C-alpha cells in the first residue's frame, strides 16, 4: 500500500516544485513591472515637482496622477482628483470654445480661461501629449498659468497702447455706448465730426446723432439680429444741425457671461466722397455727351454739305438764266442767304471738328505777307461799302517764308478782321503784323487787329472766347453769327501753340492780339499754291472731253451745267459710280476726270487706283471732289493718285481755275510736286493719314507689329472683318439678355480688337462698357455706348475692307 502513496507523494512534490518555479518567475516579472511603474512615477514626480506647471496624467479619461503644482494652481487637494474631469478646470463660459479648440486645433496646445475651486479665473495655456504610462498609452495635460506671463503682459500693454493710439488718432469717429444708447466714450475725431465738446457728448443719447429716428430703429434691429453691422449708410446730424452722410460699422459689447452691455462702433464721414463721386459721374457723363455730339456733327459734315452744294450751285446756274428784275432780286437773296448759311455751317462743323479732335493742322511753307495781303484784298470792298478805313502794316523784319498752316492763319485773321468790320460803324480797322522774337530756326509773330467799333464791356471781355457767346443778344440779332467765331479762333490759335488776348473799351474800340510761333522755311523751298483772288480768268476752256463721276443727281446737274458754260466744245460724260467710271475710261479718251470721293460700289479712291494701276493711265488728270473739306482729305486724294481736289460746295471760279490748270499742257501745279516730293515715308504716312478725319482706324500699330509682312496683314484684316461684327452683335445680344457677366467678358476681349484696329476713340468707351457691366452701373447709357461702338465699327470695317482690297490688288 505504501508504494502507491509514495509514488503519489513523489508526483505531488514534483508538481509543487514546478508550481513554485512558475510562481517565482511570475513574482519576478511582477516585481519588474512594479519597479518600472514605480520608477516611472518617481520620474514623473521628480519632473513634475520641479515644474511650475500643473501636470495631469489621464488614462481612459480618468485623472490618474497630478503634481503638486497642479493642486496649487487650482487650489485642489490631491485626494479630490479622482472625481474631477478635465473640462471642469475650464471656466464654464469658455468650455465650449475650449472643446472646439481641443478638437479642431492642429497645434498641441491652446489658450483659454481656467477656473480655480474658489471660482477665480485665470488665463492658461493647455498642452497635451500622449505618452506611454504603465505599459499603456496615457495623456499628459500640462496647465501653464499665463497670469504673470511677461509676454502676455507685454502684448497686453502694447496692444492697449496701440488701441489707445488708434482711438486717439483715428480720423474716423469711434464711440462706445451703453445698452441704452448713451455714449460712454468717444474719440477726438468724433468730437470734431459732430461739433460737440467731450462733456456734452458723454452721456448723450446716440439717438441725437441721427437725422431720422426711424433710421436708428432700423439700425438697432439689424444689430440685434446680427450682433454686428458694417458699412451701414446713414445720415447723421451735427450739433449745428448740418446733415452728414456717414457709414457706420458697429459691434456689440458683451460681458464675461455673454450678456450685451452696450455697443461700440466706427463712423466715417463720406459726405465729401459722395459729393465727389456724384460730380465725377456727372462730369464724365457730360463730357461723354459733348464728345458724342461733336462727333455726330463732324460725321454729319458730309450730309449737310451735299444739299448745300446743290442749293448754291443751282443758284449760280439760275443767276445765269434770263430773269426778270424781280426774279433776279429773289435769286440774289437766295444766294446771299445760302452763302451766309454755308459760313454758319462751316463754323459749326469746324467747331465740332475741333471739339471732336478731328481737325488736323497743315505744315507747309507759305508767305505770311501773302496771307495778310489776301485778307486785305478780301475785305477791300466790304470796308469801302461801310465807309471805313482798312490799314495794313507788315513789319519789314518779318521772315518771308515760314512753315505752318496758312489756311488756319487765314481763318484766324479773317475771323478777327470780319468781326472788327462787323462791329465798327465809323473809323478804321487796323491789321498789324510784327516780329516779336526771332532766332535762327523760328520767329514769333504778333498779329494785332484793332478797330474803333462799339467795344466790349469789361465784364464780358472774359467770356467772349467761350462757345456760343455773343456780347449781347441784341447784337446777335443785329450782326448775326453763331457766336462760335471767336471760340474757333481761340482753339485754332491754341492748337498751333499760340495765344490770344483782347483789350477793349466800350465806345472806343477793341484790339485783339494774336501771338504765333513759326519755324522759318529755307528760301529754296518757297512754294505758293494760293491763287490770288484778283486773278480771274474767263477765257473759254477749249475743246475738252470730261468725265464727271458723281452719285448724287443734283450735284451732277450742278457740276455739268456749271462747266458747260465755259466753252461750247466741252463734252461731258457722266458716271454714277467708280465701276461705271472705269468702264468709260476703258472706252474713251478723257482730258480730265472729276471724281467724287464718296460713292457706292467702287469709291473715288478705288476707282483712281484702278485707273492708274490697272489701266495704266498715269497721265490722265483726276480732280477729286470731296465734301470733307479737311487738309487730311486733301492729302489723301493726292497720295491716292489724284492730281488735286476741290471741296463741295465748290466755288465756280476755283473749279474753273483747277480745270484750266489741269487740262493745260503746262507742267502740273506746284502743290502736287511739293506733296509728292515731301511725302513722308510709308509707315509715317499711314500714321498721318489715319489720324485724320474721316479715318476711324489707325493701322500704324498693326503695321509696325507686323513689320511689312503683307500676307500676315491680309490674314489679320480678314480675321478682324470676320470677327468684329460678331463681337459687336454679341455685345448687343448680351445687353438685351441682361447677361452682364458675358457682356463684360466680350467687352474685355473686344479691347484687343480695338487696339489692333487703332480705334483710339473707342478705348475709353469699351472700358466703360466693361466696367458698367461688371459693376451693374449706368446700364441705361451702356446701350448708347454699344451703339457708338457699332457705328464706329461699321466705318472701321469699311476702311479695313478698302485696305484689304488694295493689298490684294497689289499682290
Amino acid at each position, binding site marked *: 500500500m505504501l508504494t502507491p502513496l509514495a509514488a503519489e507523494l513523489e508526483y505531488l512534490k514534483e508538481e509543487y516544485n514546478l508550481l513554485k518555479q512558475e510562481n517565482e518567475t511570475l513574482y519576478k516579472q511582477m516585481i519588474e513591472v512594479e519597479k518600472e511603474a514605480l520608477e516611472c512615477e518617481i520620474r514623473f514626480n521628480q519632473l513634475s515637482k520641479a515644474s511650475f506647471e500643473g501636470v495631469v496624467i489621464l488614462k481612459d479619461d480618468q485623472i490618474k496622477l497630478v503634481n503638486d503644482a497642479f493642486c496649487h494652481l487650482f487650489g485642489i487637494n490631491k485626494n479630490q482628483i479622482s472625481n474631477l474631469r478635465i473640462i471642469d478646470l475650464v471656466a464654464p463660459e469658455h468650455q465650449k470654445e475650449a472643446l472646439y479648440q481641443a478638437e479642431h486645433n492642429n497645434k498641441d496646445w491652446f489658450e483659454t480661461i481656467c477656473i480655480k475651486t474658489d471660482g477665480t479665473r485665470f488665463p492658461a495655456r493647455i498642452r497635451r501629449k500622449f505618452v506611454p504610462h504603465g505599459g499603456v498609452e496615457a495623456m499628459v495635460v500640462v496647465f501653464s498659468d499665463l497670469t504673470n506671463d511677461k509676454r502676455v503682459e507685454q502684448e497686453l500693454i502694447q496692444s492697449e497702447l496701440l488701441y489707445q493710439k488708434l482711438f486717439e488718432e483715428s480720423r474716423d469717429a469711434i464711440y462706445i455706448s451703453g445698452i441704452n444708447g448713451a455714449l460712454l466714450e468717444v474719440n477726438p475725431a468724433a468730437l470734431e465730426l459732430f461739433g460737440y465738446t467731450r462733456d456734452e457728448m458723454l452721456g448723450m443719447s446716440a439717438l441725437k446723432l441721427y437725422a431720422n429716428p426711424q433710421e436708428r430703429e432700423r439700425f438697432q434691429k439689424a444689430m440685434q439680429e446680427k450682433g454686428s453691422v458694417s458699412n451701414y449708410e446713414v445720415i447723421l446730424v451735427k450739433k449745428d444741425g448740418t446733415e452728414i452722410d456717414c457709414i457706420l460699422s458697429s459691434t456689440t459689447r458683451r460681458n464675461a457671461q455673454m450678456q450685451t452691455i452696450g455697443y461700440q462702433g466706427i463712423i466715417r464721414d463720406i459726405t465729401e466722397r459722395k459729393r465727389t463721386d456724384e460730380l465725377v459721374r456727372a462730369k464724365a457723363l457730360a463730357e461723354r455727351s459733348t464728345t458724342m455730339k461733336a462727333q455726330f456733327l463732324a460725321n454729319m459734315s458730309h450730309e449737310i454739305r451735299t444739299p448745300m452744294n446743290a442749293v448754291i450751285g443751282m443758284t449760280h446756274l439760275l443767276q445765269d438764266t434770263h430773269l426778270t428784275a424781280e426774279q433776279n432780286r429773289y435769286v440774289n437773296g437766295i444766294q446771299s442767304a445760302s452763302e451766309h448759311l454755308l459760313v454758319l455751317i462751316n463754323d459749326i462743323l469746324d467747331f465740332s471738328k475741333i471739339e471732336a479732335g478731328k481737325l488736323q493742322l497743315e505744315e507747309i511753307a507759305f508767305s505770311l505777307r501773302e496771307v495778310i495781303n489776301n485778307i486785305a484784298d478780301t475785305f477791300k470792298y466790304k470796308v469801302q461799302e461801310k465807309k471805313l478805313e482798312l490799314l495794313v502794316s507788315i513789319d519789314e523784319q518779318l521772315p518771308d517764308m515760314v512753315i505752318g498752316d496758312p489756311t488756319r492763319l487765314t481763318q484766324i485773321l479773317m475771323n478777327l478782321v470780319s468781326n472788327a468790320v462787323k462791329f465798327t460803324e465809323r473809323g478804321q480797322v487796323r491789321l498789324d503784323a510784327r516780329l516779336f522774337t526771332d532766332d535762327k530756326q523760328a520767329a514769333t509773330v504778333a498779329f494785332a487787329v484793332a478797330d474803333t467799333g462799339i467795344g466790349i464791356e469789361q465784364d464780358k471781355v472774359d467770356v467772349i472766347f467761350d462757345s456760343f457767346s455773343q456780347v449781347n443778344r441784341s447784337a446777335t440779332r443785329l450782326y448775326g453769327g453763331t457766336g462760335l467765331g471767336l471760340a474757333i479762333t481761340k482753339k485754332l490759335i491754341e492748337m498751333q501753340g499760340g495765344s490770344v488776348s483782347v483789350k477793349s473799351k466800350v465806345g472806343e474800340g477793341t484790339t485783339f492780339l494774336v501771338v504765333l510761333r513759326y519755324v522759318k522755311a529755307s528760301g529754296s523751298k518757297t512754294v505758293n499754291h494760293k491763287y490770288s483772288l484778283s486773278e480771274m480768268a474767263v477765257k473759254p476752256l477749249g475743246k475738252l472731253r470730261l468725265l464727271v463721276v458723281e452719285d448724287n443727281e443734283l450735284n451732277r446737274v450742278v457740276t455739268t451745267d456749271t462747266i458747260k458754260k465755259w466753252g461750247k466744245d466741252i463734252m461731258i460724260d457722266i458716271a454714277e459710280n467708280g465701276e461705271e467710271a472705269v468702264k468709260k475710261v476703258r472706252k474713251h479718251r478723257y482730258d480730265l476726270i472729276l471724281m467724287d470721293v464718296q460713292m457706292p460700289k467702287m469709291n473715288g479712291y478705288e476707282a483712281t487706283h484702278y485707273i492708274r494701276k490697272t489701266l495704266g493711265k498715269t497721265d490722265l488728270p483726276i480732280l477729286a471732289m470731296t465734301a470733307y473739306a479737311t487738309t487730311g482729305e486733301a492729302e489723301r486724294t493726292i497720295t491716292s493718285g489724284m492730281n488735286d481736289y476741290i471741296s463741295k460746295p465748290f466755288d465756280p471760279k476755283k473749279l474753273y481755275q483747277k480745270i484750266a490748270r489741269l487740262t493745260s499742257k503746262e507742267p502740273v501745279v506746284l502743290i502736287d510736286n511739293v506733296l509728292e516730293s515731301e511725302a513722308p515715308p510709308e509707315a509715317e504716312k499711314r500714321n498721318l493719314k489715319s489720324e485724320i478725319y474721316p479715318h476711324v482706324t489707325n493701322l500704324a500699330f498693326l503695321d509696325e507689329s507686323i513689320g511689312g*509682312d503683307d500676307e*500676315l496683314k491680309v*490674314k489679320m484684316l480678314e480675321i478682324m472683318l470676320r470677327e468684329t461684327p460678331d463681337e459687336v452683335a454679341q455685345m448687343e445680344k448680351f445687353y438685351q439678355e441682361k447677361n452682364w457677366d458675358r457682356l463684360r*467678358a466680350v467687352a474685355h*476681349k473686344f*479691347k484687343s480688337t480695338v487696339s489692333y484696329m487703332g480705334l483710339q476713340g473707342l478705348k475709353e468707351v469699351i472700358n466703360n462698357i466693361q466696367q458698367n457691366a461688371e459693376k451693374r452701373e449706368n446700364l441705361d447709357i451702356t446701350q448708347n455706348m454699344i451703339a457708338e461702338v457699332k457705328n464706329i465699327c461699321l466705318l472701321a470695317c469699311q476702311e479695313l475692307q478698302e485696305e484689304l482690297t488694295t493689298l490684294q490688288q497689289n499682290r
Partner: protein
Amino acid sequence: MARNYKIFLVDDDIKTLIMLKNHLEKRIAHHITVNVFAYGENCLDRLDEEPDIIVLDYYLNAIKEDALSGTDILKQIVELRPQARVVMMSGQDDMETALETVRNGAYDYIIKNEKAMQRLEFLVNKIVLEIQKAEGVV
C-alpha cells in the same frame, strides 16, 4: 546642335495669338517652336510635349463661357509641369489679379497693351538665358 525651346501661347483671341506667334518667330534669335491654343484645356492635354514657356491669358472664357480660367490652368500647370515658366497676360484692369497669379507660381506677367509684344520678347529671351545657365550652356 542648339536646343529648341518650346513655347505655348494660350489666348482666346485669335488675333492676339497670331500677332504674338509672328512676333516671337521673327524676333527671337533662338530655335523656338510656338504652339497656339484658344483653350487652356488643350494646352494641358499637351503638357507632355514639355513646353519651356507657357504664355497664358488671364481671361479665357470670352468665347466659351464654361472654359477654365487662366488661374485654373496655371494651377494645373504648376502641378503637372512645374518646370514650365508661365507668363500671365492680363488687361490693365486686372493687374491685381495678375500679381496674385505670380504669387501662385506664375513666372511673370504682361499687361496687354501696345508694349506687350516687346515685353514678351524680353521675357522669352530672359527665360532662355536662365535655362541656358541652368543647363550649363552659358
